[in-house]
Structures are given as structure tokens and as C-alpha cells.
């Protein structure tokens, strides 16, 4: 009988002020975890850094309105088969399911903003949104399976 496979997981957390300058260090730390965890070069160079940057920027700018007194909490769970990144801000959140961003949008080739959710969906296997029932916070969850 085969031995049960180990499913050890690694958890890391960060709490940062809502300042864009804080993003890079967290992204680099998460990418380093993925590299050590055997994620592919493409995932480490493109999927993870871009999607996590989008999630953090969204939390800081839209969730916390760039108020440095408000915190963004990031929890990373790295398992043998997948990466989960939870980004929690203090804003009311938004209905991710109803937010459609697509290259078919009429202004896609003209607008400056409005591609972040599209990129997260394209680069991650799952993107989920959870709003606290009392309006006290919003959690965006990114999941990526190791190739």
C-alpha cells in the first residue's frame, strides 16, 4: 500500500498600510515562495506577480481609498498542489460576479484603467470575492494550481 502523500502547507501573512509603495515587497516575497515551491517559471514571472499586484492595488486604491491608516492583510497558503492568496481590505467590497471586463468592451483599446479583474481571471485558476455581512471588509481570493 502506498504511503499517504504529505500535504504540508506553508502559511505566511502580512499586514501593510494602504500605500502603493508597499506592494512590491509583498509581491516579491510571494513570488519567492512560489519559486521555492516548484511553481513554473511562467507562473513565477507572470501569473503570480501580475495577479497579486492587481489584487493589492485594488485593495489599496478602491477598497481602502489609499488611506494609509487603513490596513491590507495578505494571507498566503502554499500547498503542494496550489497557491491561495487572500487579500483583505477594509472597504465594502464589490460584486465580482457582475463585474465584466473584456477585450470586447467598446472602449477596451482607449481606456486607461479597467483591466485588472480581467487579468486576475486570466492569470489565476480561480478568483473569488467575499464581503463581510456587516460591511466591515472585503476579501479577494486568488488560487493558482501548480503546473
Amino acid at each position, binding site marked *: 500500500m502506498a504511503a499517504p502523500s504529505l500535504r504540508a502547507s506553508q502559511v505566511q501573512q502580512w499586514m501593510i498600510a494602504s500605500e502603493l509603495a508597499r*506592494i512590491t515587497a509583498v509581491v516579491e516575497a510571494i513570488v519567492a515562495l512560489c519559486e521555492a515551491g516548484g511553481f513554473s517559471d511562467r507562473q513565477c514571472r*507572470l501569473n503570480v*506577480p*501580475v495577479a497579486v*499586484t*492587481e489584487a493589492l492595488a485594488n485593495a489599496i486604491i478602491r477598497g481602502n481609498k489609499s488611506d494609509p491608516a487603513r490596513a491590507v492583510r495578505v494571507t498566503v497558503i502554499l500547498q503542494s498542489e496550489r497557491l491561495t492568496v487572500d487579500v483583505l481590505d477594509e472597504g465594502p467590497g464589490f460584486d465580482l460576479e457582475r463585474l465584466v471586463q473584456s*477585450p470586447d468592451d467598446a472602449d477596451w*483599446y482607449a*481606456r486607461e484603467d479597467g483591466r*485588472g479583474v480581467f487579468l486576475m481571471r486570466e492569470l489565476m485558476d480561480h478568483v473569488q470575492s467575499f464581503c463581510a455581512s456587516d460591511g466591515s471588509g472585503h476579501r479577494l481570493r486568488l488560487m493558482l494550481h501548480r503546473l
Partner: protein
Amino acid sequence: MSFSLERTDDVLIVDVDGQLVVTNRQEFKQAILDAVEQGAKTIVIDFTRAGYIDSSGLGALVSLSKRVRDAGGDLRLVGLNDDLRTLFELTRLDALFPLYASRADALTAR
């Protein structure tokens, strides 16, 4: 990310080193717009040494493209690695920008 600008007549070459993302897109965009205001027409952005680009970086390029065209010039992208090409293909923004393998290719396309 850092970037350097090299201007010769109406040609501006922008060398990007590192990430083009939400934290630096305004500085990047403004530097190029300043050069366009001063007469630069052909803008060649070299990504050979660049890292990843997020939606803000892509948005800055889209915005610059329009501003440069409005000023009678054009924006050309050079040196995109496979990851960055994938990003442009995913977003279909490869349809908006001429992509070249090298600076020489971009400049001889004048």
C-alpha cells in the same frame, strides 16, 4: 523600475528596466508625454530588460499610444519576452501596438 530616455531629433528611445506597474506608471507616462510635447514623434519603448507589466502599466501604454497618435507620431514596442507577449495577446493589446524584435527593426520601420 527605472527607465532612461534617449532623444535624437524626433525619435525618443525609452529603456525600461524592471516592472512597469501601478507604483511607477505616472512617472513613466509623464516623462514620455513631456518629450512628445517637445517634439518627439517616434517613440520606441524597449522592454528587453523589463520585468512584468500590470494593468496600470498596460493602461499607461494605451493612453500614451493615443496621445502620441494625436500628436502625429507613433509608439513602437521592442524586446518583449515570451511572458510579456503572452500578456499583450491575452489582453489583445498586441493589435494596438506595433511590436518589434529589436530597436533597429523599430527604427528602420520609419
